Structure formats: C-alpha cells, structure tokens
C-alpha cells in the first residue's frame, strides 16, 4: 500500500498533495502536515486528492478538523477531487456542502480569481 504526501508552499496557496489511500494508518501524516501549515500561519490551503484512490472517515475527520481551524481565522480548505469514487464519500455524508470541491487546480484558481474580480 503506497501512500505519498507532499507539501508545496512556493505558491500563493499552500498545497498538500496526496497519493494512494488515506485511512486510519496514513491519515495521521495528513494531520501533521495540516497542523504544520496552520502553525505557519496559513489561512487558506489546498488539499489535492487527484491521486487518492481511497479516503475513509479518518481522512474526512482530519479534513473537517483542518477546515474548522481555518474557518476560525476566516480561511478555507479547498479540495481538488476529480475522482468520482472519492467524491462520493463527501456526497453521501453531506460534506460536499461544507467543502469547496473542484475538479482541478485550474478550476479552483479560476473560482478564486472570479471572487476577487467580482
């Protein structure tokens, strides 16, 4: 079972890129990276789930926890999730209504640009 996590902070929007399965075994690594970005003062982060093929309730819990902390500082957690299987987990739990979920990074940036100009 391969799991990879990579944090990118060179962009305007810090991003955590994940690959593989996010579950009870690997979710603590995601939590650690999110907390590091929070401690670094980030107010908005992107979590890229493009290469994730499995996400369970422990992964959802970490994402919800991160979103809650970001919202406390009027920030946000943006998700990139083109995989319909993974997206379905958000849909059946109703979490697609509290997260901003995009199909691609370009789509997320376009939405942000639209907000700024509008």
């Amino acid at each position: 079972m391969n799991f990879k996590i990579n944090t990118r902070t060179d962009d305007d929007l810090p991003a955590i890129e994940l690959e593989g399965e996010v579950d009870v075994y690997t979710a603590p690594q995601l939590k650690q990276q999110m907390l590091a970005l929070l401690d670094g003062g980030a107010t908005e982060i992107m979590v890229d789930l493009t290469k994730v093929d499995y996400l369970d309730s422990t992964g959802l819990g970490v994402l919800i926890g991160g979103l809650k902390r970001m919202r406390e500082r009027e920030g946000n957690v943006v998700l990139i999730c083109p995989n319909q299987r993974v997206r379905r987990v958000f849909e059946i739990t109703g979490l697609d209504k509290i997260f901003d979920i995009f199909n691609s990074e370009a789509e997320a940036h376009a939405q942000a640009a639209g907000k700024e100009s509008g």
Partner: protein
Amino acid sequence: MTAAKAHIVELRMPCQPEYVGVARLAILGVASRMRFSYDEVEDIRLAVGEACTNSVEWARRNARQDSDILIRSTMEGDALTIEVEDQAGPRTEATGQSSRDPESEGLGALLITLLVDEVRVIPREGGTCVQMVKRAG
C-alpha cells in the same frame, strides 16, 4: 434440489492500523467473485474498512492493540454477509481517550449504515461483532 452450500472466507489479522488495508484488499477479492457492480464492491470495501477502523480505535482506547480481528465473509446466493469481530474490549465512552479527531466520531458508523443493506452491532465477550449484509442488484 438442494440449496447451494454457503462459501465462507475468513481472515484473522492484528487489530492495528497498518492491517486495515489488508482487510480491504481481501474483501475486494471476495466481493468481486459475486454479482456486485463496481460501485457496490467499492461500497463493501469502504464499509469493511470502516468496521475494522472502529475496532482498531477501540483497541487503542482499551490498550488491546495485541488482540486480533476476525473477518468472516459468507457468500450465499446474491447475499454477502461480513462479520468483523474484535477482542478490542468494551465500547463504552468511559474507557480511555480517543485518538480519533472528534470531527470524525460517528462518521464511520454513518458510512457503514449508508453503504450496506443491513448492519447489526453485537456485543460479544471481550469485544464486538459488526455484522453487515449486502445483496447484489
């Protein structure tokens, strides 16, 4: 004509986080042998993963990480019954501290309910058995 005998596949594994993926792989193999659609197989995989995760979490709370989980899959006609039985101790809030994010408490149980046709949680001596039934079609 006699009814076809049920086929049973059992897996015993340590009640630890790194083995939950093994259970998911095994159930994927079992469910793929039946008439389930791709989506239904994925539902079963997620439900079994969640049931095992719960066992792992309770084992951690009750300091029973050296216990085992037994996963028994019974294939009978179009129905797949999966029992996830642990020796992870009592599931009472008074015991230990959860390592799980408070935000995800209850999410796993909710997912199981949404993904399978029937679910029963049966307290057993020393642990709990979660019995899930999924029917093809």
